[in-house]
């Protein structure tokens, strides 16, 4: 049973590990990715990052991505938590945990989950620059599509 949450509050990585593994001894490895707010972009200092999403679509979209990972890697458990709202540099944005019997499946599933989340889940980031207070929407990177595409043949 996967845990999928979208929230303004921070998450506790240790608590999420504990919840994922509670009462189980069949897990051989947990792949983990944590995305955090960088304090610079294109040589400029970032004051804050504001994340918005499409609430009615986010849950179903994350559910589809998680279901695909569970199917491809026979996961024993999975956690995806994505924050929204105004975040400061250094704060957590996203947590992905993928539990599997073996190392490679856990690592690959975690990679797949974050790559697909970046290209298939309806979240948008806006950066506020420190010097001027100017705001700009983050543009999607072609590299993100390429990262997601490498899983197509797998």
């Amino acid at each position, binding site marked *: 049973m996967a845990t999928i949450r979208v929230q303004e509050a921070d998450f506790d990585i240790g608590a999420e590990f504990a919840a994922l593994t509670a009462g189980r001894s069949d897990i051989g490895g947990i792949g983990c990715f944590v*995305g955090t707010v960088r304090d610079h972009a294109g040589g400029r200092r970032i004051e804050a990052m504001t*994340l*918005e*999403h*499409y609430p*009615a*679509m986010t849950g*179903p*979209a994350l559910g589809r991505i998680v279901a695909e990972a569970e199917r491809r890697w026979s996961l024993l458990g999975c956690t995806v938590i*994505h924050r929204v709202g105004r975040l400061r540099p250094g704060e957590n*944005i*996203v947590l992905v945990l993928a539990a599997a019997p073996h190392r490679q499946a856990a690592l690959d599933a975690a990679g797949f989950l*974050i790559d697909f*989340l*970046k*290209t*298939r*889940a*309806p*979240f*948008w*980031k*806006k950066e506020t620059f420190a010097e001027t207070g100017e705001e700009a*929407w*983050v*543009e*999607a990177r072609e590299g*993100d599509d390429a990262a997601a595409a490498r899983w197509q043949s797998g």
Partner: protein
Amino acid sequence: MQTPDTRTLKILYFAWLRERTRVAEEEVSVPGSVASVGALIEWLSARSPGHRAAFANRRTVRCAVNQDFADLATPLASGDEVAFFPPVTGG
């Protein structure tokens, strides 16, 4: 009054599309000829200068119909929820 020749749609805008249209959500009645996402974009573009600006560069606009990714050819039915947004940048 809605005639059989029109369909009512709920339109949502996110990120810079919302900032350009200056509206997060609107309900529209479109003529029967507006039967696909592509035709809807043409129709919405004529609503205001802000809408025109939002849809000016089609390459940077993505769409979902009833919370699922759609493309220009996706057909529309009365009652559909159609969302327009930039390419996603989460994670």
